[in-house]
């Protein structure tokens, strides 16, 4: 079970990052076969998702 102290001090948003990485890798692995191409496209996709989510976060923060 998760350490309660760690859980209390950790923002849930950080749990998004591992998901972004795995989703990018698996999605692009189903699009291409070459490892270099998969890794290259995954990195672009992960950066794009994080940038988009970060932008949404900033937008919502400014609105609030």
């Amino acid at each position, binding site marked *: 079970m998760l350490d309660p102290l760690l*859980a209390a001090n950790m923002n849930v948003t950080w749990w998004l990052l591992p998901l972004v990485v795995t989703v990018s890798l*698996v999605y692009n*692995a*189903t699009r*291409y076969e070459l490892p*270099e*191409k*998969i890794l290259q496209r995954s990195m672009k996709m992960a950066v794009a998702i994080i940038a988009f989510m970060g932008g949404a976060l900033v937008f919502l923060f400014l609105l609030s």
Partner: protein
Amino acid sequence: MAAQRIDLKNPILAAALAWFVPGLGHAYQGRWFKAILYSVCIWSTWFCGWALGDGKVVYYNRDMKRGRWTAGYAAQVLVGAAALPAIYQNGRASPGGKPEDRSQIELKGPISGTFDGALAGVNFTDGRKAFFRVRGQLEMQPSDDDSFRRSVTGRFTGTVHPTDENDAGVADGTAVEVSVNYLESLEPEVFPSAHRALKCTVKGRISGAKGGDISADLRGKVLNVRSLWNRYAAPLDAEGLEAAHGDLGKYFEIALVYTWIAGLLNLLAIWDAFEGPAYGYGDEDPATGKRPDDKSVPPPVVATATPAPVFAEPPPPSQVSATG
């Protein structure tokens, strides 16, 4: 087609293996990079969710009487072997097609171990009332007395830890010894926790306390008494679900989402094992779509003029007059 450059072997078998164990289908096809990538990504997401949810988020609960079932399991079962035991565990936990009521569950055999819980509603013989945290050793077994179906015999010995608001004059760490006589509530045998919760009525004595004879409710958990077989992918009943939400808070939902996403990602991997990569091998020329080793010259594109429409010539006037 990328699939023509990849030996997919038997695609149906590969897809079945990819479903059963993420990464196994691609290993069967000899696509080792993808086999490792899928297994690491999908398994890590799955077990991260499983651990984050304290092993309580992967289950299938079908209440036949109410016509309800756990819809999220449809995503989890896409991970294959790791989620399949949930179907069997649901059958064990709900033999009548309905989760058992804790107030009706009987103790089928002896249970003993470290107990952590509380003595609630403590009534001293002199009229004082109190509530204590307790920790100690509990031993309990079904009673031979057939007059009450849920009669049990047993003993709890441990120490009491009074709360600040209501210590009833009892010092912290005072020894307590009580006998158990009636089981009010018992957690199911098949349940996703190593500890087993129960509630029973007790009578006994708190050492050295004035008017130390007491009657009370003993409620809490016997620690580490449930085997892995009885807890892996076991369903939560209504009380268990409520307690899990209380214990884990928002992490219960995050853990659920992790296991769902692991299953849905494996759906993509299953299709990749069956059909090959969707866009191509990855080394094609973006402009022509050709492979690097493809030296064939594309046929020249020749501009052709639009052909003039062909009309049938009208018959000569002599034929027209003859037929007319």
